[in-house]
């Protein structure tokens, strides 16, 4: 259902993305790119030891990719690397499996509607792949292809 894909929370975060700014003193910044649709984002992460102390992004993309990046920054701020990666696993399951929505997803559960739109899964995961790269130390730009 289109209403499930474009839930109010997603439309809100698309229109007014949170943590949408560059971060000059970031520990790491990584670019993510979806060549299929041209979505581009740059993610900034400030690490305090193992903790994501601050996170932000800039870029241009579709509603799903922008809202996903915005909600992701809210969801992982204050979390450890391991916690952030576990959240990514659960988020990925939400989008790609038939299983009931994993627990503890919080606001991210709003993306459950994406499952019905396989062509849009990459839009929702672009920010997360970019985060993974930022947290695991890969320095190349991330591409969904």
């Amino acid at each position: 259902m289109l209403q499930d894909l474009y839930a109010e929370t997603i439309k809100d975060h698309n229109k007014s993305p949170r943590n949408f700014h560059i971060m000059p003193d970031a520990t790491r910044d990584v670019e993510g790119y979806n060549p299929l649709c041209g979505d581009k984002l740059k993610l900034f992460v400030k690490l305090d030891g193992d903790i994501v102390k601050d996170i932000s992004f800039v870029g241009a993309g579709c509603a799903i990719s922008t809202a996903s990046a915005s909600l992701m920054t809210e969801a992982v701020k204050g979390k450890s690397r391991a916690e952030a990666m576990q959240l990514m696993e659960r988020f990925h399951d939400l989008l790609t499996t038939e299983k009931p929505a994993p627990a503890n997803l919080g606001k991210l559960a709003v993306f459950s509607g994406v499952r019905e739109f396989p062509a849009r899964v990459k839009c929702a995961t672009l920010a997360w792949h970019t985060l993974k790269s930022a947290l695991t130390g890969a320095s190349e730009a991330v591409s969904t292809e």
Partner: protein
Amino acid sequence: MPLTATSPQPCVPSGLPREQFPVLSQRVHGKPLVYLDNAATTQKPQCVIDAMNQFYQADNSNIHRGVHELSERSTRHYEEARVKLQRFLNAPDWREIIFVRGVTEGINLVAYTYGRRHVQAGDEIVISAMEHHSNIVPWQILCEEKQAVLRIAPINERGELLLDEYEKLLNPRTKLVSMVHVSNALGTVNPVAEITRIAHQHGVPVFIDGAQAVAHMQVDVQQFDCDFYSLSGHKMFGPTGIGVLYGKAGLLNKMPPYQGGGDMIRSVSFAKTTYNDLPYKFEAGTPNIAGTIGLGAAVDYINGIGIDRIQEYEHDLLAYGTAQLESIPGLRLIGTAREKASVLSFVLEGVHPHDVGTILDREGVAVRTGHHCAQPVLEWFGVPATTRASLAFYNTKQDIDALVAGIYKVKEIFG
């Protein structure tokens, strides 16, 4: 009744155009399919599908070698298709029609053979700012290898080639001009005869990428006087994986082969191999025989309707679509050339094309979203992507109305 061997049935259209295309009769997400992605690929009429089935069911054999009945039949149908394509492009000689996979292979063939032989360090190749990646990347590869320079003829804000600026780029170091006939991202129809005339004044040969032109307008390579012209079958109601490279015999004869293998040789010994004559010199290996026969059937089909009638009908449909889209608040057409064909590329304020495409799909309307393999020209227009509706003669005003209704649905969802 057992199948009997026959010549492929001539593809003669009858009835309403869309009824002849099996794909178009389906429903998508519960809505009648409105197919507006013809610049990506066109649908196939039943008679093209039948011609290919007929080949596999009754005639299948390799060509140019067997003495048996099936091989003679396959060879005849394959070569008949070549003559159909020769007439379709109004090429002077059937030997100038080389079957390739599509325009991409046509461009690569010329880049690897003509380009490698004639382009030296410091030489220049001229393309336009509105090219598809397939008419950019092969030349970049060549230029990198040869330390040559790729020059880009600019366009104006409508998406029209600036002929004066183009002419200024031509100089004694220019070895080739390669330009698109109709832009896939903008719909601009380039003045290919004029482009060629200007290049020839400087002694420079011209390649024209006809992928987006052949289903929509008359192509006459003798009138254009271009040196090469290439088309893709699947963009003109034929199958995928087959296309044509037309080249003037004088140039083709001087070019080295593209690929080595069977059929492209006259005799082979370990000491020396002599190459076959045109067009076989450029057709190594067993070709796409069924595809070629399907493409020949597509030419019959287009001729049966009349390319002039198609052009006239689509001209009106495009004008209608342009007016309808321009009436939508917040919509901006990308590509507003005075001479346009088939393409309605647009951006909608505040909504990313990918979201537009998903919502239209749920309304049964198939469009393309993204950069259309023409990133540089979209960058020039300052947009990362567009939504593109592209027409064929089987589309109707009702299809445009469904598109417009879908766009209002997008606006409703995104408020």
